[in-house]
């Protein structure tokens, strides 16, 4: 079966699933998963088999002929779309089932399939006009998925913010593609590095795609959208949708020439995004918001890699660019896998307890062992700890950065701070996820719903298991992914072909395997010894405190207190505290709210100014006819002055 046929069948299967989605959930699921599998097969054939496809047809759409193309870069992202799309569909079968959400579940299924089609097409189309079409449709599908639960105000507000931000980005892309088309004379896309005059367009692309990717400070829509969406939607938004922003940047920095400053700016933005994103994440009390901010961090990490690759491109194609780009692209996969896993886990918790507030949970590990275990695995992966996949991609990225430093060129001045910020981000990520995992799953249940939680069913557990095994496999055998990543790097820049995986990657893989074995052995040994010596249960000692209560446990806010303090200048937390006073203090309160700083301290004031202008303008429409005629006169005089003023010189 040819590549094109595979993709066509996948497209047809997904289209059919749109049709049946309203009424027949099981057929929908089968078709969606089949479509995803077919897409995955196609992507794998490109990535591992080295095939690539380009299709053109005389069929006119919007006055442009259809032009599709699947190469290494797009296949890499297509793989992600297929995997998360398929697993998410399975997950939603239980998570957003018809019996719980009779009114929204059908819509959710249809939008899901449409989203997968649009995402796939974004990766395939090779025409600016068509790209914009599927891009915006993909954004709209995302909007309708985020706002599935429209009844809730918070969901609607979050969805609206997403929609507006996304539209702003799209308008940037309007300018980008329109300028590209007017400079090249056609909407057709493809490698055009030779046109040096196109370089400044990179900034437009960076803005347009950056809004979708959600790096700092363009991330304003991301936390609330990902937190308020249904969890399978959060998973695909966080795991895949924002990656398409990265795809845009990677794709067009590969096809178009880039300005010399691009690498510096992208690396800088990436490092900032990594550090500040995770600082925000750590401070959150809502576990889905925490995961969302963590996506900002991970996009930052990916952007560091992309930025270093761009630096390499402008500095004589230095070999370190390849390593960094490979790390970034691998991290695209890795982040997709573990972030989706974490969001699925979060969904399971949310499903079981009905709250996203970490400080209302606790002790879930005992009632939801599967979720807890898989979530813990996800936290290890997202914190970039060996022997899981997160570490591998960050390791590649570090190697790239270190290689820049050893090169001792001027580029080291951005690589050194980036490496240090990346390290700090890694440490805070560890802290954040130690906090998230511990506060949600460990200790005692803080509220009634947490105590009465239940484990999720097989439909939800299955996808989590799949994703967890992906995390483990990539971690233990990174060499397996190498051809895919290397192929993508090679198709990004033809002269950057890297054949064999670096020796150190192979060694790293064996070290990781050894580590995993040692961990299993040691755990078993220690457990056996403890068991053998006698395992007693008792209350938590807690230095002998007699009446411990669940609410006395360390909460998420107190856990994050120290680091949040360091980042107070950017976090701008809003605190409300009433300290206990007097000999018999009545009531003490301490509330902490973590606003989205960029949104509330930068966008909101600007928006306020615009709204002020708007209300001024509105006052002009006051209903008095006399003034309306005066406006006509004013228009006459104004235009008259404009016209005749222009004629004087």
């Amino acid at each position, binding site marked *: 079966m040819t590549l094109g046929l595979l993709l066509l069948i996948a497209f047809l299967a997904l289209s059919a699933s749109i049709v049946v989605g309203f009424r027949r959930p099981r057929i929908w699921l089968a078709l969606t998963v089949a479509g995803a599998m077919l897409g995955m097969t196609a992507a794998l054939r490109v990535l591992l088999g080295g095939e690539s496809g380009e299709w053109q047809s005389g069929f006119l759409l919007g006055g442009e002929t259809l032009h599709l193309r699947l190469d290494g870069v797009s296949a890499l992202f297509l793989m992600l779309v297929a995997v998360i799309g398929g697993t998410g569909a399975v997950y939603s079968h239980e998570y957003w089932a018809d019996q719980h959400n009779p009114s929204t579940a059908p819509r959710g299924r249809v939008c899901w399939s449409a989203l997968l089609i649009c995402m796939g097409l974004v990766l395939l189309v090779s025409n600016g006009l068509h790209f914009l079409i599927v891009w915006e449709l993909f954004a709209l599908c995302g909007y309708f998925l985020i706002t599935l639960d429209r009844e809730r105000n918070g969901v609607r507000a979050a969805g609206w913010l997403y929609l507006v931000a996304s539209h702003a980005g799209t308008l940037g892309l309007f300018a980008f593609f329109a300028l590209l088309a007017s400079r090249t004379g056609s909407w057709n896309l493809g490698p055009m590095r030779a046109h040096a005059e196109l370089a400044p367009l990179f900034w437009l692309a960076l803005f347009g795609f950056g809004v979708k990717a959600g790096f700092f400070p363009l991330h304003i829509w991301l936390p609330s959208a990902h937190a308020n969406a249904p969890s399978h939607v959060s998973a695909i938004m966080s795991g895949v949708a924002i990656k398409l922003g990265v795809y845009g940047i990677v794709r067009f920095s590969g096809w178009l020439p880039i300005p010399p400053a691009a690498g510096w700016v992208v690396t800088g933005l990436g490092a900032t995004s990594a550090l500040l994103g995770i600082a925000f994440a750590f401070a959150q009390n809502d576990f889905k918001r925490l995961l969302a901010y963590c996506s900002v961090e991970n996009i930052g990490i990916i952007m560091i890699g992309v930025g270093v690759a761009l630096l390499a491109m402008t500095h004589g194609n230095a070999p370190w660019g390849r390593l960094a780009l490979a790390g970034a692209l691998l991290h695209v996969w890795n982040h997709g896998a573990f972030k989706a896993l974490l969001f699925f886990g979060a969904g399971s918790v949310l499903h079981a307890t009905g709250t996203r507030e970490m400080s209302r949970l606790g*002790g879930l590990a*005992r009632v939801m062992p599967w979720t807890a275990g898989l979530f813990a695995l996800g936290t*290890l992966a997202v*914190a970039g*700890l*060996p022997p899981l996949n997160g*570490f591998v991609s960050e*390791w590649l990225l*570090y*190697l790239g950065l*270190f290689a820049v430093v*050893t090169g*001792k060129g001027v580029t*080291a001045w951005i690589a050194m701070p980036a490496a*240090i910020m990346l*390290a700090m981000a*890694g*440490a805070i990520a*560890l*802290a954040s*996820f*130690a*906090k998230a*995992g*511990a*506060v949600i799953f*460990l*200790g*005692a249940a803080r509220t009634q719903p947490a105590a009465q939680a239940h484990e999720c069913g097989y439909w939800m557990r299955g996808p989590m298991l799949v994703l967890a095994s992906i995390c483990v496999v990539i971690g233990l055998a990174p060499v397996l992914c190498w051809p895919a990543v290397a192929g993508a790097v090679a198709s990004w820049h033809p002269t950057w072909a890297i054949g064999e995986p670096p*020796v*150190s990657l192979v*060694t*790293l893989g064996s*070290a990781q395997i*050894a*580590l995993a074995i*040692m*961990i299993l052995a*040691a*755990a078993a040994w*220690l*457990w056996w*010894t*403890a068991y053998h*010596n*006698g*395992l*007693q249960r*008792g209350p*938590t*000692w*807690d*230095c002998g405190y007699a009446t*411990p209560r*669940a609410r006395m*446990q*360390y909460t998420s806010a107190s*856990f*994050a207190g*120290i680091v949040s303090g360091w980042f107070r200048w950017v976090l701008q937390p809003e605190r409300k505290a009433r300290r206990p006073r007097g000999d018999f203090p009545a009531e003490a309160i301490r509330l902490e709210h973590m606003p989205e700083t960029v949104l509330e301290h930068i966008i909101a004031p600007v928006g306020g100014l615009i709204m002020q202008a708007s209300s001024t303008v509105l006052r002009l429409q006051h209903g008095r006819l006399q003034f309306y005629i005066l406006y006509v006169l004013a228009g006459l005089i104004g235009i008259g002055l404009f016209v005749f003023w222009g004629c004087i010189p």
Partner: protein
Amino acid sequence: MIVMRDLMLRLVLWLLLAPLLPGIINKVKAWVAGRRGPPVLQLYYDLAKLWRKGVVMSNLASPGFIIGPAVAWVALIGAALLMPLGPAGSVVSFRGDVLLLIYLLALARFCTAWAAMETGSAFEGMGAAREVSYAVLTEAAIIAAVLSLIVHTGSVSLSTMLAPSAGAGAALLVAGLFTVLLAENCRVPFDDPNTHLELTMIHEVMVLDHSGPPLAAILHGASIKLLLFSILLVQAVLPMGDLSPLAAAGALAVGVLLVTVGVGLVESLLARFAFRRVPLLLTTAFLLCVFALLVAWKGDAP
């Protein structure tokens, strides 16, 4: 096979030697204070006793309570095995192994914190929070130090990175890394392993509820970490590669001993810092490492 044998040998060496260091430190402290102090091998006795004891596990705890220390222990041992040992070099050496080492330490930290949180105790939560928070700054300092070594040697593999002397920035690097060592191993002035005021502690408070073999694993892991940092510090500064094997071995041993004594002296002479000032000190350590980095950059630039 030789690699395996070598690894086994090193494993045994690390396992056996590590608990010596806390004993030495305690001896130094006792000596400065004019006491006799516990025997140097005290930790060995403790570990042996703990290993034979039963475990009391909180009602709230899940298996992570025991698995956590096991993973942490393995991670620290793994990190130790990556460390080149003077003239013997390292067994497993590859580009970027230094990162694996750093992240293994992080893994250990994560697992200790996780195990601590298992009990749902506020004290242990406090300790875990402090541990992971301060690590942010130490991690930055370590990466800065590593970067300075990378700049200096042009290599990203531990065995070659640590071979030459640290050059012009050596003093800065020693100061920075020594502070990091104190922080990472929870010694005075960051933490006081001897106090029993739970509110003021970091590491010790995390293990309040542990007992028996898991506690033994934690304590042993801590001693390995101390030894690891001492060796790292010594090798980073001394020109190991330039010395004859014997001299190198001797230098390493003496260096580690010196560091250990140094730690003991610091503990005897300094009081624990207020918590407010810990970040300040850590930032200082970070800056020292950054200066070392800058010196390395300047010093080696043509």
